[in-house]
């Protein structure tokens, strides 16, 4: 793979309600990402937006932000999925050799709609939708099957939530920085057992933009490009009943591909920081297993040992992760942005010392049916 470098990033602060419109959010991060990269809009020769018609409540939702992202000036497309998929599309534009500098923008106003109604529409209209399935109770089915297969405890899941909300305190963009205890999580309101309120991610509005460039341009235009060294994406079966919900084989395969590209054969040793899509506390445990940071079923012990804490061998979600800010569609792109900050050494008080290689992860669909993995390097 040719080298492509990320040379600009920007995020809004995530919040329960941001009064700005979609276009206003998108324009803010576009302009700030350009500033970060030291570019003007004239330098951008293609764009990718990441809008979803359900979350945005309109057909052709990408139309809203066409002018705000400068997409009307250059070849553009809209990926409907997590922000990591948008970044992948931008990467392809550059690897084709046709384009030089790509801008990827995701914005989300989850507060406009009703997440349960919107995520209910992910399920089969004939079979599963009538059961009232949504993101929360489907995740509960997965969490229970994962816990019962491996003997993972609710406390171990809660520990992820405690860690990530604490990490968020050092992240100025995070929506929910909090000091909470395992007990607080266990005692929080049960939504769909075993999922409790503090096991879930919040409803957040916000936006994120990244700018990437082909190697020569990236080096010329930026002092510290962060290189994309590997990428992989993969999708599991659709119906929940068809899948073994205790595992994420699609993530394992996506990671395998990304690792191979990046020359990673021992992820725990070679990766310094990981930002994974923890929409629910248990997901971080499942994902670090499938990413090969530990054996299946052992993530609980890993968390107990403190290995994924800020001072551990593999800090996971120093930003606070999705548990601390969940602007859907944006969340995966925000994982990339955080890893870029970490590798640049610009993560301030949440800096993972000496981070050289980082992993960013996004998911798509219910219970992590689809996954996209990026490996970035300084």
């Amino acid at each position: 793979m040719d080298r492509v470098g990320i040379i600009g990033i920007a995020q809004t602060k995530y919040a329960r309600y941001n009064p700005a419109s979609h276009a206003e959010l998108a324009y803010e991060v576009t302009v700030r990402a350009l500033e970060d990269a030291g570019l003007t809009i004239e330098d951008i020769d293609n764009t990718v937006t990441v809008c979803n018609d359900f979350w945005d409540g309109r057909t052709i939702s990408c139309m809203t932000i066409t002018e705000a992202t400068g997409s009307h000036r250059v070849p553009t497309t809209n990926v409907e999925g997590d922000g990591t998929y948008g970044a992948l599309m931008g990467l392809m534009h550059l690897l084709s050799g046709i384009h030089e500098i790509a801008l990827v923008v995701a914005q989300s106003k989850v507060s406009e709609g009703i997440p349960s109604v919107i995520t209910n529409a992910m399920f089969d209209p004939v079979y599963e939708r009538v059961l009232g399935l949504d993101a929360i109770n489907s995740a509960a089915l997965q969490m229970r099957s994962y816990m019962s297969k491996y003997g993972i405890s609710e406390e171990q899941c809660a520990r992820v939530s405690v860690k990530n909300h604490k990490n968020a305190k050092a992240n100025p963009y995070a929506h929910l920085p909090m000091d909470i205890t395992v007990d607080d999580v266990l005692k929080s309101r049960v939504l769909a057992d075993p999922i409790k309120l503090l096991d879930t991610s919040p409803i957040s509005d916000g936006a994120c933009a990244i700018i990437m460039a082909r190697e020569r341009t990236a080096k010329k235009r930026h002092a510290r490009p962060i290189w994309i060294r590997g990428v992989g994406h993969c999708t599991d079966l659709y119906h929940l009943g068809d899948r073994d919900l205790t595992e994420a084989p699609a993530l394992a395969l996506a990671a395998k591909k990304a690792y191979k590209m990046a020359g990673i054969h021992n992820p725990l040793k070679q990766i310094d920081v990981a930002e994974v899509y923890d929409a629910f506390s248990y997901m971080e445990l499942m994902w670090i297993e499938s990413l090969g940071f530990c054996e299946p079923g052992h993530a609980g012990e890993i968390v107990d040992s403190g290995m994924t804490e800020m001072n551990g061998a593999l800090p996971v979600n120093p930003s606070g992760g999705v548990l601390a800010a969940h602007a859907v569609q944006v969340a995966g792109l925000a994982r990339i942005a955080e890893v870029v900050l970490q590798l640049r050494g610009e993560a301030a008080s949440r800096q993972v010392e000496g981070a050289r290689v980082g992993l960013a992860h996004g998911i798509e669909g219910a219970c992590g049916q689809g996954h996209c993995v990026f490996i970035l390097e300084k």
Partner: protein
Amino acid sequence: MEERKEASEALSIKCVADMPYNYHAGFYYSRFLKELRDNKRIIGVKCSKCHKVYVPPRIVCRDCFLKMEEFVPVSDTGTLLAFTITNFSYIDTTTGEPKRIPFTAAFIRLDGADSNIVHCLDETDERNIRAGMRVRAVFSNNRTGDYFHDIEYFSIMRRQNEERQSP
């Protein structure tokens, strides 16, 4: 035999789930709607570089890619650029009810603006409408901050138009 026939019968499942949204107007539309509601005034926003005036106001000038911050009033009169009379009904996605027809969608360039707006006309007979006609906004007396309510419709300025055509 009968069993097989039954097996090949294809069913469909009705889904009429409500999907409510609470669209946020954002800063620019909010200002626009507040002016309409409180002052019966239509405002646009002006680009500091090319001086184009956009109505409804929006954050970015599409040509200059600059953030626009100067709000300016525009006239409640304008020129009809194009129109179309819609005669088929469809579901009004805001209310979920069938759309009332016929209605005339009017594309209007307000005096003082460099972009167009869409609203409706108080005329649904195509023989009485021509592109280029002058139109004026008719405001509601009971304004709520809703563009399609606070301006009830645009009215064709007939007399002025006739005067123009018969010198």
